[in-house]
């Protein structure tokens, strides 16, 4: 029975990494944070892991802090609820707070974690475009390999393929500081206003120089490709131009960047068009 799947319950990160490096029953357990994804999968009986590694008690993976270099550290087990409540997150990554408020509703925000969202690797993950747009490093750790830090850009090699090596756990994120004068933006188009999976989710960071031209333009999107993506053509079309001049071209770039599909929530035509329009409207408003 599904409820009988064995659970390993380490009380420290060290113990957790040891269990991953050297699984007692030979098969590597599936890590579980707040359970909001894995329990849905288990209930639907689609996938049955051989065992589960419960990370919930690892308080050392919780918490937010600002580092000397201005980056915002968010422990992998930080819940959306804790991110929403964090003055640091509100000050240093307001788009992430907005994104956290759109995840499910309060019950999911209580248990769902940023690390879980990243590890689950859904192309529709609500927080992921924010991490891409603002810039973020993922910090992973394994018993044998120690700590490894890599850019979140490129973290997914393909649909639900995260760069998490065997034996590794995500322990946290270093979210880059916003450039001086930059503003950030978040927009989720869901099936409804709460408890919604996104049809399109977008995030952006932009700054203009003294001459009014765009010196920073980073845009990312979810639910429009097999992984969350940066909108490279859109960014290229906008950088160096005045927002009102380039807005249409940025929108056109976004339409070219995305490769959406038809599914039960929406269709490719809608996702492509809406990506273009929302990006265009945002750039025009800068």
């Amino acid at each position, binding site marked *: 029975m599904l409820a009988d799947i064995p659970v390993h319950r380490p009380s420290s990160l060290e113990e957790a990494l040891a269990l991953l490096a050297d699984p*007692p029953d030979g098969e590597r357990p599936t890590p579980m944070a707040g359970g909001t994804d894995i329990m849905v999968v288990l209930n639907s009986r689609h996938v049955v892991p051989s065992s589960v590694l419960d990370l*919930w008690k690892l308080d050392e993976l919780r918490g937010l802090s600002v580092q000397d270099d201005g980056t915002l550290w968010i422990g992998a087990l930080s819940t959306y609820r804790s991110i929403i409540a964090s003055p640091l997150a509100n000050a240093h990554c307001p788009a992430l707070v907005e994104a956290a408020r759109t995840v499910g*509703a*309060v019950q999911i925000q*209580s248990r769902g974690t940023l690390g879980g969202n990243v590890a689950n690797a859904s192309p529709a993950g609500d927080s992921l475009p924010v991490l891409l747009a603002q810039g973020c490093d993922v910090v992973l750790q394994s018993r044998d390999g120690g700590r490894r830090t890599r850019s979140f850009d490129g973290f997914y090699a393909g649909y639900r393929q995260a760069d998490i090596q065997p034996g590794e756990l995500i322990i946290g994120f270093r979210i880059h500081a916003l450039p001086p004068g930059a503003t950030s933006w978040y927009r989720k188009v869901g099936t409804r*206003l709460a*408890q919604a999976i996104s049809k399109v989710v977008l995030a952006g960071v932009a700054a203009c120089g003294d001459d009014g031209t765009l010196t920073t333009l980073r845009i990312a999107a979810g639910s429009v490709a097999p992984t969350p993506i940066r909108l490279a053509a859109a960014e290229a079309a906008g950088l160096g131009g005045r927002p009102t001049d380039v807005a249409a071209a940025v929108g056109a770039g976004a339409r070219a960047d995305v490769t959406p599909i038809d599914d039960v929530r929406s269709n490719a035509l809608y996702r492509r068009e809406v990506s273009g329009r929302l990006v265009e409207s945002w750039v025009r408003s800068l």
Partner: protein
Amino acid sequence: MRNVNGGLTVRFTLNGEAVEIRNVPPMERLLDTLRERARVTGTKEGCGEGECGACTVLIDGAPSVACLVPTCQVDGEEVVTVEGLAEDGRLSALQSEFLAAGGAQCGICTPGFLVAARALLDANASPTRAEIREGLAGNLCRCTGYQKIVDGVERAAEQERAGDAG
């Protein structure tokens, strides 16, 4: 309690009382542990995937859907269900105002709404109607159109503030 292959013994506080439940399958849903083992059935199942909120309980004060929480994760924590909302065997202001406002119709979603409302009012004693709607957006009701649920929580907040002031 690591690497358990048989049933777990889980200890937690349920509505203020210490409980110990033996032989819990490791990945059993808290919802099933409450309903089938503790025989506390006020917490309801509407969907089994965290969508309807009928199984909302408080875990260390945080509103959570018991269908997505493995019971092993509440070991050592405080769990509150709808059965824990009454005060000294009498309806709390939240319960009586919710009822008087017409917030309960068929009643199947009511326990989840009341628990979510408890969490909301604990965090914000004077919520606006928009804040009440956001705080209850994880609970689906098909009977009321939500109007009288929002009314009930708004009235309960007033009562609780008046009680605190008095």
